[in-house]
């Protein structure tokens, strides 16, 4: 119960309606003011404007936005009519997901779609289902409101097109079987980007999207980047929108919440039928940014807004309410100055939380550093939280049991208490802690040495064996698809997934914490489950140097690799396992997808390059308890 409570505004009860005009705001976390709430919320921003317009005691805004609200917003919208509102604002759409995986009864249809069209078939299916559902929500709600003559305002959410990047992943099984060509194009395009040959990169990416039929973000992101570099903002925006929409079919890795184009379109078209007031934030932000692409100025992450974003959106919503309730036309731009803003301390905390959130959602070092820098720019007080955070994030002791968590808690910030101490998960966080250290430097606080020292104390292979597959370390590889199986808190949901590591790309990245002068022993049990296109071995690199080449095998095999001391870094060491290029199955890959769907499993749309059952790093100086005999194969293996 307590948990459910956390999703709503902290209001004990709603008083019976009095003389005040009553405006109700419902919606999801973006309407809750995620990362600011409870210190600052869109409802507060809106109420301030309306009270300035109507008088302090003339109007109230009731905040019924709920984090994690999905399509049940329909029921809530109908229920709040009991509260006798003078206007209701619905700010929803980011949690309206594609209906994939489908109902079992639709599996034969999906089967046909896959065989005839490839992944683009189920993608269209998911879009059509979603669009129909959104139209139904709007109709169900708007028709009742019309009959009761209660003014209704819809806010159509926008996505952080400018800065949010879904992690790059391989294309799914392609109908035409041209996956290898796709990979080659991607590699060529990367080289072209590096050489700043944007025309060539765009050309290669264009061919990628033709092959994958826009079912992958990878080509679309390259096209967007090239368009931006070549000064074509409208084209860039279009590619970024296509990229946002391209993942609707993919239920295997949980894509961040987002409002898909089909949802936006359905909202626009259906609300127009009822002549509802609409805040079209894609349009609003475009105006506000003078044609620019919405980014970190307005967003804290994929969809949650910064203060600036909240203020603009609520000013526009207030203008709608004024029109609907008072029939007065006020330009939203004139309302922006009438709203309120959070304190600098709250801004700093929200920015720091955004840094954590973005880092844990695999965003770039640049973006993570931006929010860290924003945090210290708003208030140097945040340094205390950052210092304790370095400690608690690096401990092996569960977060809330750490002394540093106690110290964070004693700082007494509601935001930090609510978000950080509740939802943070400990991981190595190379990017995030790097960003924190850098931001602290701005305040002339040196934290790097302490971080390095702490990391070694807690995680050095010299002190204890490291399980490279453990989420704490594996998450630093930056490959989200690969770590789904060890994702904390997820194991109760996906019970029939394989309980070992699967590589979805040519290279798999791992890390361990080493010590200068200390050799390391890697132990790996791996296999290459699919036929390969060549006889290339599996290669293992440590910090860019190949330390082992292992012949590929379909069956599990265990190997020990002794990494000499001069190849080991003091601190973080990168381990990369390179897999041979597989023979891609083309449409026969869909057979497995259909089986999975029919059995209610999460389907596997992607080719597996290699699998690892166990992977550990330990102190190479330790005497082995059972010395295994060196097998004859060892000489066959390229031993460097």
């Amino acid at each position, binding site marked *: 119960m307590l948990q459910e409570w956390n999703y709503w505004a902290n209001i004990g009860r709603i008083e019976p309606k009095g003389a005040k005009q009553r405006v109700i705001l419902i919606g999801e976390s973006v309407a809750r003011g995620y990362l600011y709430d409870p210190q600052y919320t869109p409802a507060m921003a809106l109420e301030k404007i309306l009270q300035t317009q109507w008088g302090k005691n003339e109007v109230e805004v009731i905040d019924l936005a709920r984090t994690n609200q999905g399509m049940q917003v329909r029921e809530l919208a109908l229920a709040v009519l009991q509260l006798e509102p003078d206007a209701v604002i619905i700010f929803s759409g980011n949690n309206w997901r594609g209906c994939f995986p489908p109902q079992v009864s639709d599996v034969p249809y999906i089967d046909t779609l896959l065989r005839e069209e490839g992944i683009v078939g189920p993608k269209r299916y998911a879009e059509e289902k979603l669009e129909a559902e959104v139209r139904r929500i709007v109709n169900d709600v708007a028709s009742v409101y019309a009959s009761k003559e209660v003014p209704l305002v819809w806010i159509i959410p926008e996505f952080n097109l400018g800065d949010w990047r879904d992690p790059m992943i391989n294309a799914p099984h392609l109908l035409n079987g041209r996956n290898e060509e796709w990979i080659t194009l991607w590699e060529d395009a990367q080289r072209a980007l590096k050489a700043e040959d944007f025309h060539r990169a765009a050309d290669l990416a264009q061919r990628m999207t033709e092959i994958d039929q826009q079912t992958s973000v990878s080509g679309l992101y390259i096209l967007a980047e090239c368009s931006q570099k070549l000064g074509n903002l409208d084209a860039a925006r279009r590619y970024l929108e296509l990229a946002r929409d391209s993942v609707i079919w993919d239920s295997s890795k949980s894509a961040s919440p987002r409002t898909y184009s089909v949802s936006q379109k359905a909202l626009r078209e259906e609300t127009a039928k009822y002549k509802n007031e609409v805040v079209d934030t894609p349009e609003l932000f475009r105006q506000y940014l003078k044609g620019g692409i919405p980014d970190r100025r307005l967003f804290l992450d994929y969809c949650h807004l910064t203060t600036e974003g909240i203020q603009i959106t609520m000013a526009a919503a207030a203008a709608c309410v004024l029109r609907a309730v008072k029939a007065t036309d006020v330009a939203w731009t004139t309302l922006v100055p009438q709203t309120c803003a959070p304190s600098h301390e709250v801004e700093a905390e929200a920015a720091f939380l955004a840094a954590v959130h973005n880092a844990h959602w695999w965003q770039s070092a640049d973006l993570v550093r931006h929010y860290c820098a924003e945090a210290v720019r708003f208030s140097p007080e945040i340094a205390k939280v950052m210092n304790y955070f370095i400690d608690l994030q690096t401990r092996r002791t569960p977060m809330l049991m750490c002394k540093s968590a106690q110290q964070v808690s004693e700082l007494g910030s509601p935001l930090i208490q609510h978000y950080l101490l509740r939802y943070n998960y400990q991981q190595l966080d190379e990017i995030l802690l790097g960003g924190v250290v850098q931001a602290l430097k701005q305040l002339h606080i040196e934290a790097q040495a302490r971080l390095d020292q702490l990391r070694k104390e807690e995680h050095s292979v010299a002190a204890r064996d490291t399980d490279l597959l453990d989420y704490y370390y594996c998450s630093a590889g930056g490959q989200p698809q690969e770590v789904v199986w060890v994702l904390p808190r997820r194991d109760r949901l996906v019970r029939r997934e394989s*309980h070992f590591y699967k590589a979805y790309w040519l290279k798999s990245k791992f890390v361990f914490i080493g010590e200068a002068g200390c050799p390391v022993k890697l132990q790996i049990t791996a296999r290459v489950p699919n036929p390969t296109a060549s006889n290339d071995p599996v290669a293992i690199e440590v910090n860019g140097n*190949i330390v082992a080449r292992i012949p590929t095998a379909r069956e599990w095999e265990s190997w020990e690799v002794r990494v000499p001391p001069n190849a080991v870094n003091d601190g973080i060491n990168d381990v990369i396992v390179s897999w041979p290029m597989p023979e891609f199955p083309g449409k026969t890959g869909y057979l497995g997808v259909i089986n999975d769907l029919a059995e209610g499993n999460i389907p596997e749309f992607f080719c597996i390059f290699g699998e690892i059952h166990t992977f550990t790093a330990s102190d190479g100086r330790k005497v082995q308890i059972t010395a295994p005999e060196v097998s004859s194969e060892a000489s066959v293996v390229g031993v460097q």
Partner: protein
Amino acid sequence: MSIKEPSHDFSQLRSRVERRPKHPGLNIIGVSAGYHDSACCLLQDGVLVAAVQEERFSRVKNDKAFPRKAFRYCLEAGGISIADVDSIAYYEDPTQKLGRQLWMGMMPGLPAERRGSIFDRMVKTQPQQVIRRLFGYEGPIEIVDHHLSHAASAYYYSGFDDAAILTVDGVGDWPTTTYGWGKGIDVGRFEQVDFPDSLGFFYSAITGYLGFEVNEGEYKVMGLAPYGEPIYADQIRNLIEVTSEGQYRLNMKYFAFLTEDSMYTEELATLLGKPPREPESEMNQFHMDVAKSVQVVLEEVMLEKARYLHSKVPSENLCMAGGVALNVVANGRCLREGPFKRLFVQPAAGDAGTSLGAAAVAHVRITREAPVKEKMSHVYLGPANTSEDACQILQTSSAKFKDFRGKEDELIRYVVDRLIEGKVIGWSQGRMEFGPRSLGCRSILADPRRPEMRDRINALVKMREAFRPFAPAVLQSKAHEHFDIDHPSPFMLETCQVISPIDLSAITHIDGSARVQTVTRETNPRFAALLEEFDRRTGCPILLNTSFNVRGEPIVCTTVDAIMCFVRSQIDLLVVEDFVLDRAGIPPLWDLQAQQRFEKPGDGEAVGHLVYTLL
């Protein structure tokens, strides 16, 4: 994914690569899953190296999901990788089970919903495929019939060279009761009772009627029974018709489990003259009398069938397994009044223990040799926590704690002082127990001489029904001075009369009996040391011992689990390995951690929860 190309200058490096040869031993993993209480074990050259229930890792009580973490633990404990596994033995025959499910699905008059759910279960992925997909295992899979798994789980671990074997449970694949024998390396069966006639379901139906959770609350009925009189035994005999040989039949008029989700029909309420008890509502004499009556009838049937079994297999030894074999009162009566001289009950007699049996059967099939034929002497087969880890956790926290590393005697004396003061102690030491009982490694301990202890622990720690007594752990060498028992009882699987000169009301049942665990230095040195010191100080070699968990939660496994359970409950003192914490030393934030670990989001919600975490 911008991974840079490797440099090819390794002149500085001299790395070595070696293929690790396959582990020389025969490694068999036993698996039970899917119904109740999933578990995994590792039999290495016939030695039981590890066994653990999945619930201890997943923290979902009676978790029935495939034991993926338990599987990994078994590999780790055996020092092997998946490449070293020679065979996976599965605890039931999916084909037989499918047959029963088909038969159930075709029952006339079955509601569509129920039919749908049965057919849904039938199209579920076959366990062999799940093993391949989930574990990534490609080697041979031995399918072992469910009751054979039960039988083997008792016989092969009994130390007997020959025995009669009785297995009794709710249902596995088809049979519900089997009669068989073990001789040398062979286990055989000569008769069985098939579903839906089931002694397990007979007892479970009354369990449900008495307002307890079926498959979970049976031991509560057994605990309630001594408070009652068997005045409803005649009525209850209507439920079950004992027929010739090993057979019996349920009177299906009173049972609904074939067609509904309930165990019993309204006819049962009519027969007993009162409506079923609402869960959590007050208990009265009627309920106690019904409990006593069903217990008496069960014992009668068991005793009669044990005599029948002996007539066919005239061995001195009896082996028992299956969920009903956890009814220690019935077992005790079978031994006392029945024809057998010795009894071995598999300590994990429920379905978790079938993993042990399946693995043993696979071992015999592969080697034509028995797995090591020594009597199972302990169940400390789960993960151990290290003192170093506990130290690390405590030192980086702001908890106040006492460090007794290298000072075991002092630790023991300290804990005994607290016990004498009347403190309730959470005690986590060494490897965790396999099976349903805590036997001194993940236990809550208290002074059994204090009459208030029973209510105190029931109310504050276990949050459970007050009628259930706690069990004593006693030094084996002194057990006979306090209990009417002349042989070791290491697994708390027998009841006997309390004959102690000391007043032991906290562990004595209303009928003067107790469920005893005898402790020796050989199998649990630190626990034995504690009992010895307590005896030296008080003249009482006995401690009250109950499982270290709060209601609704699995028994603790890790140091963190133990700490969190300590925080959430009202236990006075926590002893983890060499460290001691009291309540005053708990940092304020630990409450929040304990609360969060206990949150169990529903499926739909959890997806969203995941989305908005800072993860």
